[in-house]
């Protein structure tokens, strides 16, 4: 997903990838990431949670915790 969004091969995306390391990660792409995550994993992110998505690693952690919290 990140690979598609940021136009970077999947191999180059790591847990530390962030707006500082990926050139394409601007505010619009951040919004696109939020939308894609919400759609793909069926979760709703609050404004505070969106703030927490400072890197790929943190995004993954956030999604995992949300999925565990809501019974599916």
């Amino acid at each position, binding site marked *: *997903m990140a690979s*598609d*969004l940021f136009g970077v091969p999947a191999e180059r995306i790591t847990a530390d990838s962030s707006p500082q390391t990926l050139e394409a990660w601007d505010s*619009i792409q951040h*919004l*696109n990431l939020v*939308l894609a995550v*919400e*759609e793909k994993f069926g979760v709703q992110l609050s*404004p505070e949670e969106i703030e927490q998505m400072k890197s790929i690693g943190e995004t993954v952690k956030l999604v995992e915790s949300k999925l565990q919290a809501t019974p599916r």
Partner: protein
Amino acid sequence: MSQEHNPSNLRAEVDRLIAEGSSDAASRHLAELWRREPGSATASFVNSHIDQLRHKLPLAQFKIAFLRSFTVEPIVPLLRAEAFTNSIDLEVLVGDFNTYVQDIVDAGSSLYQFAPNAVVLAVRAEDVAPDLAREFAELSPEAARQAADRVTHGYEQWVTSFRQHSQAALIVHSLERPTHPSLGVLDSQSENGQSGLIRQINHELRRIAEGFRGVHVLDYDALVARHGSENWHDERKWLTARLPIAADHLLHMAREWVRFLVPLTGRTAKCLAVDLDNTLWGGVIGEEGMTGIKVGPEYPGAAFQAVQRALLDLSKKGILLAVCSKNNLDDAMEALDKHPGMLLRSQHFAALRINWTDKSQNLREIAQELNIGIDSLAFLDDNPFEREQVRAALPKVTVIDLPQNPLEYAATVRDCPVFERLTLSAEDQQRTAMYAEQRQRAGAEQSFQSKEDFFRFLEQEAELNPVSDLNLARIAQLTQKTNQFNLTTRRYTEAQIAEMAKQPGWNIFSIRVRDRFGDHGLVGVAIAHDQGDECEIDTFLLSCRVIGRTVETALLAHIAKSAAERGCKRLRGWFLPTRKNAPARDFYPEHGFELLAQSCEGSLWSLDLTQQEVAFPTWVKLVTPNGGHD
């Protein structure tokens, strides 16, 4: 292609096909992927692959610019993917946030430098009229009225200014009425309440748009209403990202924009070919008959009347309808023309292919008959196997994915963007009727208003020759073979004909006929001999190939004329009936001959050459042997 139910298989297929250079197949798989899983997640994949394919495919290139008061960027990939599946390659410019007025009035703005083909002015009521949208309750009626006028005046200025700088199409979003009016149900009681005033602004927008060429209103208010105002909005996204539209409605916004792009790029369908059984009526006519099929105002036939109404509406926009059905022609035509529940009749269709042939072949023929490209055809069929077959054989045809429930048919047809039009001409409205008239005209030419018209149509030429070495054999042969149009059925050998030809007073004629279809050759023989001042017709015959086209009149006229020229006063001839020559029985009386005598063998007829003549038919051209004309 449709066997791959797993989208990741489709993704891999697309990559593989692009790598091996099969751009058409890759683009079909990409469109299939988008159809199965439209959304933000897939959009990125689709967009990056559009970029790899766009220069290898015959897509319509189109530049669109957005002037906006809210975030539209996440919708752009969805829009590009939707446009791609409609064969449109979009280049998109998104103007700066809320700078729409500056972008329009500044001749040197990046908007005009982009040189767009179309511009969307997507501004919300909250942004262009915050006092009306939020503070309505605080306004006096006078102030509210002025606020509405200010908005209308603004739009008028912006549209006028835009037109001064650009001839591009302008698509203006109408304003959305509030989900919760400031004053609750009180608001609906007045024309000048919050909703009422916004409605009036939208009314003015339509009036303004009509005053310019290429300015169109996108009814944003109706779009939101269709999906439900409460579902459409996302307050959280609005506050965090200025995106007022909820994630699962972003695609609907994109699709609404595509409804304008399709007619603007001409990627429209000119004809919708429809199946009959379980598409225009419930059931199978060949099995259930007229009394068994379901179409009418009551359930379940009502669903089929609804889809027929949708098709009728399409035809009023100039879209042609055609039938493509596997059926016995008679069964289908009976239902089509006689069933009382039908709204559509055979005259509503510009072409009909009702047979047992493969549907792709029928569709190709329909396109050819109507003189349209195969990519201008759309296809409606309840049977998924037929749909897949057509999709595989004719990838350029728009195959409509009908849902299983007939109650959803009409909406599915109305939702198809390929039927959208932004203008309507008198010719569009008349198109179906014109095609029906043209078919009648062609049919009339087949059957002809009168026989004379048909004779004229044939463009016959007649060459009359006396017997000679060249035609002797053929003349003798005709006397031996000809049975039907043969007045005396006298058989002669070549030798006898040759002998006859040497006798003074015996004249042997042949007639050769050409018409618009070709040369029939020597088709008639007449043998006449003079006795005193009478000329008797010994033999008069015509090949059945040319019976009933007045060739016989031409031959008789020639005999009469030459007899008169030789000084004969009367022309006479016998009709000797046989089992086979009934077609010739009335020949003499029809040409004005009188009955002279009757015997057990036959009847003798006579024409007074001093009083009467036999007129040479005006539509037959008499040709002299050396090719010149008489």
